[in-house]
């Protein structure tokens, strides 16, 4: 068909073909930085290459819009049920992509793979939800807001994989003897429980482990560095480094009972935490970020939490539609209210 006057001329078939070839080179997932560099060089070589690549991304974008659909989507496209998910693979791809830089070029499939793993997770929670689970060995687990967990128990191991979000675990003595190792994989490390109660959060940039009873052995995914975190302690880490250690924070398990504990938490940290549990967009002005909040609140009662913040700190909570913004209170207004 002829292009309409004024429309861009058609992308040459050769460029489309090369773009499809690049896609096939990269879609296996085991891409290296060198692969991505070569793709970037090809893109830089001609504007038609960029246009052709955009078409590739349109195609992959169509899949992106249904990746959360799970089994029904598969059924509709008349496919056999998916086999065991390749969770660890998906995560390692993400980590590699993160370390490799190349931010300008989005490689959507690594993200879809992650999304796919989330969509197919054995257990998932939405915003503000928690889920209490009793595992086959009698261990208990709680999933926090916007979290996803895979459970894989076999004759030789009790393996959990926290794909994202918050997990609190209370391990039980294994009925099988000798006891099978109890492990939790998170984005940045493998954890091995040594008879214990602990909480772990897996986030994009870093993860955090708080141990309340017993101990957990942590092995970083990138550097294989290990650390045993004992009862009452916490460690914050990414795939390569232990970033911080300190006292365990009771607030990191209280969410399982629906309680937000803000024991001297910075306001920006509180806002971030609330953002995980509530759908509203929330932010605080830079000048009030470092103020600290103390108290225990029902996690779900946003009005009450924000009301308490406004009452106890020199701030004003502004509601703009569904968004929440916390700013410094004018001096007079603060006095007037208190």
């Amino acid at each position, binding site marked *: 068909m002829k292009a309409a006057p004024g429309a861009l001329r058609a992308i040459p078939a050769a460029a489309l073909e090369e773009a499809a070839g690049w896609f096939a080179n990269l879609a296996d997932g085991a891409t290296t930085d060198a692969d991505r560099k070569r793709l970037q060089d090809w893109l830089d070589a001609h504007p038609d290459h960029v246009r052709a690549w955009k*078409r590739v991304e349109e*195609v992959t974008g169509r899949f992106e819009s249904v990746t959360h659909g799970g089994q029904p989507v598969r059924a509709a496209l008349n496919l056999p049920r998916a086999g065991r998910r*390749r969770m660890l693979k998906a995560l390692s791809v993400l980590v590699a992509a993160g370390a490799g830089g190349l931010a300008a070029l989005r490689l959507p499939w690594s993200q879809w793979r992650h999304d796919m793993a989330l969509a197919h997770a054995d257990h998932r929670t939405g915003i503000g939800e928690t889920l209490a689970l009793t595992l086959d060995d009698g261990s208990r687990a709680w999933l926090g807001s916007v979290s996803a967990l895979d459970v894989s128990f076999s004759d030789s191991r009790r393996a959990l994989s926290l794909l994202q979000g918050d997990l609190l675990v209370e391990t039980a003595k294994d009925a099988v003897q000798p006891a099978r190792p109890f492990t939790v994989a998170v984005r940045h490390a493998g954890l091995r429980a040594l008879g214990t109660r602990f909480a772990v959060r897996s986030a994009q940039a870093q993860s955090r482990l708080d141990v309340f009873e017993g101990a957990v052995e942590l092995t970083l995914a990138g550097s294989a560095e290990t650390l045993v975190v004992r009862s009452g302690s916490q460690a914050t880490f990414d795939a390569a480094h232990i970033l911080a250690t300190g006292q365990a924070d009771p607030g990191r398990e209280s969410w399982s009972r629906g309680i937000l504990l803000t024991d001297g938490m910075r306001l920006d940290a509180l806002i971030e935490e609330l953002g995980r549990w509530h759908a509203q967009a929330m932010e605080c002005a830079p000048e009030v970020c470092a103020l600290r909040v103390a108290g225990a609140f029902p996690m779900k009662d946003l009005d009450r939490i924000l009301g308490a913040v406004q009452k106890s700190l020199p701030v004003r909570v502004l509601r703009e539609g569904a968004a929440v913004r916390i700013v410094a209170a004018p001096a007079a207004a603060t006095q007037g209210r208190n």
Partner: protein
Amino acid sequence: MATDSRTDAVDVLYSDHYGWLRRWLQRKLGCAHEAADIAHDTFLRLLTHPVETPLREPRAYLTTIAHGLVVNHWRRLEIERAYLAALATLPEPLAPSPEARAETVEALVAIDAMLAVLPDKVRCAFLLSQLDGKTYAEIAAELKVSERMVKKYMANAMLNCVIAIENAAR
């Protein structure tokens, strides 16, 4: 403008043949409502995909287009049914909203159409990769072909898809 004469030609076709086409479709589909919709879409298609007019065999031409639309219509129903049936087996909290469902069905129909021309193995390899995140090694084992063949399938599938999108954009 050129579009005016094209619109005029479609107007003539419409007044001469719309009623006939609608009845033809109604016999085929057994539903007056769907028949009217598809007859309407057939003429819409003539406006957006212009052909040389006057047509020598207008009714043959119209029924060819209409037949294609009927096939698409059935395919859409099939996809929608399969999707909704599978959804019905999910626990309540995981069920998407009606809007999200409608969007997903649209996306599925688009994907299905994009993949329609592909041979089974190529289509299957592409979906295993893009929906399941499987590696080429896994896909190769599942389809009993070599990894190199999987890579060829992937390039072939993507090329067909980008061409379909590129043509639709013209």
